[in-house]
C-alpha cells in the first residue's frame, strides 16, 4: 500500500464530510474561475491593443474636447520619411443608437483613406475595401453588434446620434468583421459625417464642430520608439490652443475600464476572499479528520514512520481534496464560458471566455491554497508524541 492509496482511503472514510467539503470548495472555485476569466479577457484585450502599435492623441483635458482635423497633417509632417509613423487616422465619436432599441455600442467616424491601414486588424480588404472607398456612407460593423441587431453585409441601416446635433444617418454595411480590437464597434467614413454636420450648421446657424475630431490614432512602425514618439507629439502641441495627451491604446482602454467600476480591482478582491474561504473550509475538514485519527497517526509513528512522512500524508490529503473540488468547480465553468461566452459591454470587452491557460493557472493556485489548508494538522502530526497519543482515550 503506498501513501496515495492511504490518502484515498482516508478521504472515503467519511463520505458525507468529503462530499460537503468538496461542494464547499467547488462553488468558490467556480467563482474563482469566472473571476480569472474576466481578468484574462481583459489582459488579452490589452495585449491585443499593444500589438497593434497605435498611439491615441486626445485633447489634454478630456476626450470629449475636440481637436482640429488639421492636426493630422502636422503629426504626419513630424515624420516626413515615415520611419516611425505608418499612417494617422482621425476619429470622431458619433454615439449612434438604433431608435427604440436598448443596446449601446460604440459608433465612430474615421478618416476614409487611412482607416483601412491604421485599423488593418478589422480586415477591410478586397471587395469590402473597394466598397468602403466607393460608397460615401460605407460602414463596417463588429460581429457582436451585427448579430445582436440582425444586420448583414450590404444592408442599409440607420443610426441616430445621441450627441448634438443628433443626426440621423443611413449607412451601407460593407463588412461585418469578426477580427479586430472591438467586436462591438461600428465605424463609418468621416467625410460623410462632416457633410451632415456642415449641413446642420448651415441650417441652424450654429457650430457643431465639423472638421473637428476626438482622437488622432497614429499607427506606428516600431514598438520600442512609441513612447518617444508620443512625448514628441505632446511637446509639438504644447502651448498651442490645442494641447494634447498621447497614450498607447492599451493605457487608453485601461483608463476607460477603470472608470466603468474598476473591475480589475473588484475581481482581485473577490479572488482573494474566495481563496481565504477555501482555505478555511479545507483546513476545518483536515483538522476534524486529523483529530479523529490521532490514535492512528500515533500507531503509524510507533511503527517507525517519521513525523515528516505523516505530515506529508496530511498535506497530500489536503491537496487531493482541493484539487478534486477545484476540478468539480472549474471544469463546468470553463466549458460553459468556452462554448457559451458571456456577452458584456465594457469598453472594448464584449465577451468573456476562458482559455485552457486560465484553467491551468486556476489549478496551480488551488494547489498553492492546499498547503496552508493542511498546515495546522500537518504541524500537529510532526509534533505528535506517539506514546502520549496512544495513551489518550478518544
Amino acid at each position, binding site marked *: 500500500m503506498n501513501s496515495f492509496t492511504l490518502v484515498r482511503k482516508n478521504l472515503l472514510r*467519511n463520505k*458525507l*464530510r468529503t462530499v*460537503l*467539503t468538496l*461542494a*464547499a*470548495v467547488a*462553488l*468558490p472555485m*467556480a*467563482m474563482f474561475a469566472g473571476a480569472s476569466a474576466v481578468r484574462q479577457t481583459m489582459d488579452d484585450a490589452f495585449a491585443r491593443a499593444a500589438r497593434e502599435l497605435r498611439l491615441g492623441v486626445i*485633447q*489634454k*483635458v*478630456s*476626450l*470629449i*474636447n475636440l481637436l482640429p482635423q488639421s492636426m493630422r497633417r502636422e503629426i504626419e509632417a513630424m515624420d516626413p520619411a515615415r520611419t516611425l509613423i505608418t499612417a494617422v487616422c482621425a476619429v470622431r465619436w458619433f*454615439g449612434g*443608437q438604433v431608435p427604440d432599441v*436598448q443596446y*449601446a455600442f460604440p459608433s465612430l467616424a474615421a478618416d476614409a483613406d487611412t482607416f483601412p491601414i491604421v485599423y488593418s486588424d478589422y480586415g477591410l480588404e478586397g471587395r469590402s475595401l473597394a466598397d468602403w472607398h466607393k460608397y460615401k456612407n460605407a460602414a463596417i460593423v463588429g460581429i457582436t453588434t451585427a448579430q445582436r441587431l440582425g444586420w448583414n453585409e450590404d444592408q442599409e441601416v440607420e443610426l*441616430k*446620434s*445621441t*450627441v*448634438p446635433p*443628433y443626426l440621423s444617418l443611413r449607412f451601407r454595411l460593407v463588412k461585418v468583421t469578426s477580427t479586430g480590437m472591438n467586436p462591438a464597434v461600428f465605424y463609418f467614413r468621416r467625410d460623410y459625417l462632416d457633410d451632415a454636420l456642415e449641413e446642420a450648421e448651415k441650417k441652424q446657424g*450654429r*457650430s457643431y464642430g465639423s472638421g473637428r475630431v476626438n482622437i488622432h490614432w497614429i499607427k506606428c512602425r516600431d514598438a520600442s520608439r512609441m513612447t518617444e514618439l508620443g512625448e514628441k507629439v505632446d511637446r509639438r502641441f504644447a502651448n498651442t*490652443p*490645442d*494641447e494634447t495627451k498621447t497614450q498607447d491604446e492599451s*493605457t487608453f482602454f*485601461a*483608463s476607460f475600464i*477603470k*472608470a*466603468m*467600476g*474598476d473591475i480589475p480591482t473588484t475581481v482581485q478582491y*473577490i479572488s482573494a*476572499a*474566495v481563496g*481565504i*474561504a477555501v482555505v*478555511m*473550509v479545507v*483546513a*476545518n*475538514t483536515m*483538522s*476534524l479528520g486529523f*483529530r*479523529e485519527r490521532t490514535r492512528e497517526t500515533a500507531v503509524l509513528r510507533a511503527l517507525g514512520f517519521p513525523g515528516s512522512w505523516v505530515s506529508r500524508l496530511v498535506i497530500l490529503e489536503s491537496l487531493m481534496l482541493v484539487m478534486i473540488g477545484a476540478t468539480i468547480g472549474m471544469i463546468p465553468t470553463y466549458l460553459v464560458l468556452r462554448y457559451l461566452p458571456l456577452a*458584456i*459591454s465594457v469598453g472594448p470587452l464584449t465577451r468573456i471566455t476562458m482559455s485552457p491557460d486560465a484553467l491551468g493557472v486556476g489549478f496551480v493556485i488551488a494547489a498553492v491554497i492546499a498547503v496552508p489548508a493542511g498546515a*495546522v494538522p500537518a504541524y500537529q502530526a510532526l509534533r505528535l508524541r506517539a506514546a502520549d497519543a496512544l495513551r489518550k482515550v478518544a
Partner: protein
Amino acid sequence: MALPLSYNWKNLAVRKVSTGLTVAGVAVVIFVFTALSAFVSGMERTLRVTADAANVTVLKQGATAESNSALTNEEIIALEAAPGRAAAAAEVVTIAALTRKGDKTGSWANVPVRGVTAESFAVHGRVRVVEGVSAEQFIADTGKWSVLVGRGAARQYEGLEIGGKIRLGFAGNDEFTVAGIFEAGGGVFESEIWGYRSHIMQVYNRRMYSSATVKASSPEAVKALIAYVEGPSVQLTGMSEKDYFEKQTESTKPFLFLSYGLLIFMGIAAGFAVANNMFAMVAGRMREIAMLRAVGFSKRSILVSFLIESLMLALVGGVLGCAAAIPLQFMSQDMIGGNNTFTAVVFTFDVGPRILATSMTLALVLGVAGAVFPALRAARTPVVTALRQV
C-alpha cells in the same frame, strides 16, 4: 427539559480549531456579503435621493443625458413661460479630468462640472453648503473664480479641499479656488463640481446650455409640465427627475447582477461548511448524546440544542464579518453612471443598520440551514447502540 446553554458553548470551546475555522469561514462570507450589499445599496441610495418629486429634467430631443444635451436661449425662454412652474434653472454640464486620491497609475476620472445660477439652489432644494462660504455668498461674489464641490467629489479626488486650486476649462488652464463643500442628502450632485454658470460657459467655450430643471408648483403638476415641455410650443424632452436618474443607472445593472450571483454562490458554500462542522460535532459526541437521551432529555431538546450551538457559531461569525465591514463606510468608489455618457458618480458604501441586519439574518439562516440535518441525526441517535459502542 431543555439543555443548558453552557453545554453548547463549552462544547464549542473544546474544539477550538474547528470552531475557530468555521467561525472564520462564516465571517469571510458575511464580510463579502456585507461589502457587496453595502456597495449596491450605496449606489442605489445615491441615485435615489437625488430625485425631487416636483422636478422635471429637460433635455434636447435625442439627447440621452445632460452631458450630451444642448439647449438654446430661445428654448430656455420658452421653458420659463411654462404654466405651473415654481422655478426653473438652465445649467451647463461639462466634465473635468481629475486624479483619484492616492492613484499613482496616471488614470483619471471624468468629474461632472455644473455651471449654476441662483435658481439652481432653488430647484435642487437638497443642496446645502456645509463648509466654507454660503450659497448666497457664492452666488453673489461672481468676481472670484471659485467653485463649490460636492462632498463625494471632495472625498474621492485630489485637490478638492477648501482653499484648494483646480484647473478647469477647455484647455485645463483656468484656475479656480474651492470655496465651499456642499451636501445633497448623499445624492448624485455630491459627485459634482459647481461653478458660476457664466464662468463655466466661458472657460469651456460653450454657447449653449446643457439642460434645464423645472420645478413644478406641486408633484401633481409634473405631468402637465412634461406635456407642455414636449408639446408643440417647446418641443424638448421632459421627464421626471426620478425617471432621468433611473435611466442613468442602466449601465450599473450588469454589475449588480454579477454581485448577486456571487452572493448566492458564497452563501451556499458557507452553508456546506457549517453543515460539515456540525456533522463532525455530532459524530464525535454520539455517546454523549445517547447518555443525555438515557437520562431523560427529549429528542426535541437535543435537536434544539444543536441548532442553538450552530446559531452560536453563526452569530459570532456574523458579528465578526459585519464588524470587519463597518470601516468600509469611509471608502468611496467612482463609476461611470450613464447611458452613452462618460461622467463619473461617486458612491460610498452604505453600511447602515438595514444592511447589517440583512447580513446578520443571512448568518443566522446559514447557521440553521447548515445544522438542520446534523441536528436531526443527533436527535435520532439510537440510545442503546450508541452507548454500547466503544
